[in-house]
């Protein structure tokens, strides 16, 4: 059983015990234990690692096969408690579809209605606030079908941010965003994390380094690593070296932009050890656990 504690010492917003979800014979999430407190927690892992399935269960969208789940102190398996959790939760699914004929303002307002905000004036102000926060102030009255993929992603993110949720579950929120928008996203999520818990999945280790207080690396439904981004980086401490030739003994190797070969694994005698990055830590972890060499 894999166990993760990613708490910052404050009250835990997410507590999971023995969480399992299978699709047919394949276990997408396998007997996972997890405890998360306020702050930003990043989920890293290759495609098929179980990140999306885990996030969907944490967003109350998918029921686990077995295991217990406590979100914001409630049990999502109990319908009345699930509703209460959803009132305090924001969720961004992976690549969500939107209504093309709506404007961002209309869509976010609609989501606010379905989030039971019945005060029209408050809704309008809140929709404008979140759309401004995601950088769509000048596009909020333009039809969604005329917006780019990145802008649509930000509309969906704005909908998730409505009402400052205490728990924000975001599945690859940076998809389709350019570097400048990613920077803005980091600032936005850091601000949200001051008020609650942000759980996000990503393939981008740079994002994790810049944004997350804790990081969880998943593979085949299990947790390979949990800790801080610095601890993930340190997984590769003393196990990264660079040479002009490829080293067949390395666990993983690739050519850098400078034309040298960067190697991960057990360095041979006399090799010049390089400073590790989070990427190195993640790749070494994946290679050690039977991932691609």
């Amino acid at each position: 059983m894999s166990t993760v504690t990613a708490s910052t010492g404050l009250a835990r917003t997410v507590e999971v015990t023995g969480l399992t979800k299978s699709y047919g014979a394949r276990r997408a999430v396998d007997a996972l234990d997890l405890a998360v407190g306020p702050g930003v927690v990043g989920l890293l892992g290759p495609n098929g690692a179980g990140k999306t399935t885990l996030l969907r269960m944490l967003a109350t969208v998918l029921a686990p096969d077995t295991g217990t789940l406590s979100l914001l102190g409630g049990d999502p398996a109990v319908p009345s408690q699930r509703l209460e959790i959803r009132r305090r939760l924001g969720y961004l699914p992976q690549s969500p579809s939107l209504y093309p004929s709506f404007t961002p303002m209309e869509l976010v307002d609609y989501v606010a209605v379905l989030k039971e905000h019945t005060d029209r004036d408050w809704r309008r102000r809140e929709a404008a606030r979140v759309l401004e926060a995601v950088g769509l102030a000048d596009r909020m009255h333009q039809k969604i079908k005329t917006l780019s993929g990145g802008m649509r992603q930000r509309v969906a993110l704005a909908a998730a941010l409505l009402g400052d949720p205490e728990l924000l579950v975001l599945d690859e929120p940076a998809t389709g965003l350019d570097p400048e928008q990613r920077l803005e996203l980091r600032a936005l999520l850091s601000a949200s994390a001051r008020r609650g818990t942000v759980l996000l999945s990503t393939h981008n280790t740079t994002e994790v380094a810049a944004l997350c207080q804790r990081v969880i690396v998943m593979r085949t439904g299990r947790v390979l690593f949990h800790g801080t981004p610095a601890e993930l980086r340190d997984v590769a401490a003393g196990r990264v070296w660079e040479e002009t030739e490829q080293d067949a003994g390395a666990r993983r190797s690739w050519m850098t932009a400078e034309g040298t070969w960067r190697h991960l694994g057990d360095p041979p005698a006399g090799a010049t050890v390089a400073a590790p990055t989070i990427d190195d830590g993640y790749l070494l972890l994946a290679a050690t656990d039977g991932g691609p060499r």
Partner: protein
Amino acid sequence: MNATTLRQAAYPTTRAITWAPLVAVGGLLLALGTVLRLLDGPPGPVLVLGAAAMAAALVFSLRDPAAPLLAAVPTPLIVRRVLRLALVGAVALPLWGLVATMLPGDGLALAPGLALTATGVAVATWLPIDRDVSVAAAVPLFWASATELLGGVGGVAGDALARWATDPWWVVAVAGLLVALGRHR
């Protein structure tokens, strides 16, 4: 979840519904009704399939492209779907009534159409959450077609197959029960 939420959600939900299938099938039914009235002919299998297509279009209105985005809102899926059905029903029922008045006898009775629609809605309720409701929308068409094609088989199987037409209110009741049982999915 309260009445104000439902009232405020009605207009945007109307805009979010894909109306094209319902409009197309409604137009087709009206055309069929007109032709049958002009020819003074009896309602035939084509009309039965037309009615099944109307039921399918009603079930198809449950298809929501933004459903993943709305999956974690406190307004439950069942409530959002009931609202959608109420909105499309408000258009479909008068249309159905209009066509029915054009035909002799009970050529287009309401109850069998409701039975097919309710069956499709029940299937949609119990589909895996990632499955497109188009599968459920095909159920009324499939059932009505099968009845037309195999209607002569008789026996228990034949009776069961024609149940939506012979005992529509029972079918509505069973489908309603299935929807109620699946309301927390």
